[in-house]
């Protein structure tokens, strides 16, 4: 592969329409993009380059297709591609530049290669975009923002010129990041049909609001995105969550139009590869996505964070949670009892959404702890069991309250299973007052819980069971004079939020599904304007 500093060869290829392109590498900075039409990473990258082409002029980018005219034309029209594309019919230019994979980007100026990038990488894309904008006398732009639902980077496919001469790859389902989908079809109901009865099969077994054209249009008026824009593909069936389909499900859930920006952010977040919604939907375990809302939008949109926060207390909480579940079922396909074969299920699959009680939280709220501004609003997702109660009325100090919580934490997943799981501790306002009165910061509390949640090793001597086969992975510690296996691998496995009403000494532990890169990881997305 040609490296930075090497001579950039000139070449002569044809555009799709037959017009010749004579590329003189001495010209101003140009981005050459080698791609294949069936490579999902190329399809992921091109929309970002479209953005650059729109800002800095389409002549700053040249797409070099390694495939035939028909496949290339199809991609140019449907993705679409907004910069010139030429066909490297005999792969001679590919051989000259020798990209190891596609997509490969070569930033070329003054006859030389200034920079290269293999695969999709947001940081690299932004860097190259700035060089192009700088040369065009424009202010620097960010073409790839952090929280748009796409991963930070993604490897590409083998370059066509390096493939052995056998059958080409089959384009798999994942046209993953094509930005345009189709419009939803319309269903016309006869006057004799009760729309509520007709819609009875659209999602959860409770009644939904029929998604009439008028209601959906009102929902769509709350966003500036086009109705056929694809926000995400929902696992496990990878159905397209277009803005219009999201709006229809939002209507069914009973959302107000102002909720659309939160819901669109939430759909991007739930499809973040780190959260692994595919695994969460396919497991026989209890897990369901728990939504936690932070920031000023809680007040603005009517989210409840006090009494009954886990119940049916606020339209915002209940409808956002419900809209998420309807979308997961209707577009993702994991219908409970069918693809979703969870043994016992989870009542959170009706709706599982809380807001943090930031006003009663003496420490920094969850989103600030994670690096966001207090003035930003965020949604966080956690693959969660139902909450388990910790009733603690007699402990008079922080340690007493935290000990009670640690005993509940010890039973996360299953008593003797240590490591590989996480837990969310939901502290009620009365408990958090006691804890903070003894001078504990949030981190102090987390460390205390980590250090003191352990399973006595003697409990591993009474027969095999869940967790006893993995003891070689567990860390040991002495807790209250007893040799124990530490429940969690790391203090970061314990998440802490403050929520609930002002009266009552009842906190909760919410255990996770399989955690970490091999399971599900908690994700937090800032709520954007759409």
């Amino acid at each position, binding site marked *: 592969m040609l490296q930075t500093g090497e001579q950039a060869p000139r070449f002569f290829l044809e555009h799709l329409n037959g017009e010749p392109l004579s590329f003189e590498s001495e010209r101003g900075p140009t981005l050459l993009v080698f791609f294949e039409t069936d490579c999902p990473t190329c399809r992921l990258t091109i929309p970002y380059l479209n953005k650059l082409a729109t800002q800095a002029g389409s002549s700053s980018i040249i797409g070099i297709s390694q495939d035939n005219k028909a496949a290339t034309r199809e991609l140019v029209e449907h993705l679409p591609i907004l910069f010139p594309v030429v066909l490297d019919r005999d792969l001679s230019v590919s051989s000259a530049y020798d990209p190891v994979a596609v997509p490969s980007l070569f930033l070329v100026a003054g006859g030389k290669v200034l920079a290269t990038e293999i695969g999709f990488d947001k940081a690299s894309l932004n860097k190259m975009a700035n060089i192009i904008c700088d040369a065009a006398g424009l202010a620097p732009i960010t073409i790839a923002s952090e929280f748009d639902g796409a991963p930070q980077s993604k490897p590409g496919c083998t370059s066509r010129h390096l493939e052995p001469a056998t059958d080409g790859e089959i384009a798999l389902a994942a046209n993953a990041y094509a930005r345009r989908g*189709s419009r939803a079809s319309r*269903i016309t109901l006869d006057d004799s049909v009760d729309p509520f009865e007709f819609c009875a099969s*659209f999602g959860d077994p409770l009644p939904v609001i029929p998604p009439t054209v008028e209601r959906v249009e009102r929902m769509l008026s709350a966003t500036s995105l086009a109705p056929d824009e694809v926000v995400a593909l929902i696992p496990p069936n990878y159905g397209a969550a277009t803005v219009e389909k999201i709006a229809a499900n939002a209507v069914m859930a009973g959302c107000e139009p102002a909720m659309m920006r939160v819901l669109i952010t939430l759909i991007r977040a739930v499809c973040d590869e780190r959260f692994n919604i595919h695994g969460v939907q396919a497991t026989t375990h209890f897990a369901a996505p728990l939504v936690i809302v932070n920031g000023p939008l809680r007040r603005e949109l009517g989210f409840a964070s006090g009494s009954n926060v886990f119940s049916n207390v606020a339209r915002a909480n209940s409808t956002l949670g419900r809209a998420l579940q309807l979308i997961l079922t209707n577009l993702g396909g994991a219908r409970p009892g069918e693809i979703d074969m969870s043994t016992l299920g989870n009542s959170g699959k009706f709706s599982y959404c809380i807001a943090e009680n930031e006003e009663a939280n003496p420490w920094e709220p969850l989103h600030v702890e994670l690096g966001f501004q207090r003035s930003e609003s965020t949604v966080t997702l956690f693959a969660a069991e139902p909450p388990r109660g910790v009733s603690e009325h007699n402990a008079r100090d922080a340690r007493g309250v935290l000990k009670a919580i640690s005993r509940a934490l010890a039973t996360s997943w299953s008593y003797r299973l240590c490591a590989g799981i996480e837990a969310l501790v939901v502290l009620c306002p009365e408990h958090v007052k006691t804890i903070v009165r003894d001078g504990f910061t949030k981190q102090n509390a987390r460390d205390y819980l980590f250090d003191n949640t352990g399973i006595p090793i003697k409990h591993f001597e009474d027969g095999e069971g869940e967790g006893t086969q993995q003891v070689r992975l567990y860390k040991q510690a002495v807790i209250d004079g007893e040799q124990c296996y530490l429940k969690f691998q790391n203090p970061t496995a314990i998440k802490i939020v403050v929520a609930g009403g002002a009266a009552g000494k009842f906190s909760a532990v919410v255990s996770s599904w399989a955690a970490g890169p091999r399971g599900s990881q908690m994700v937090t997305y800032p709520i954007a304007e759409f």
Partner: protein
Amino acid sequence: MPTILVNPLDETVRFQGTPAARLDTLEGKTIGLLDISKPGGGIFLDHIERLLREHHGVSQVVRVAKPTFTKPAPASVIDQLIAARCDAVIEALAD
């Protein structure tokens, strides 16, 4: 006045495939065993491998494993099975 609804369901046109032809015999075949990496899966597949070799005359058994049971098999694992030219693949779990 009829009520017109916006279809809230997934309308993706799905490709209708046909299942591969079934094998008429296991004799002389190459069989892939794909472990989804649940606990005990290896033991279960060891049994299957032994049965295939001793009782069904397969000529080759190819063993591969997913890195985690929580996600679909990555392309690199599927590629191994394709490269080995398996006649059939058993994907299995134990637990």
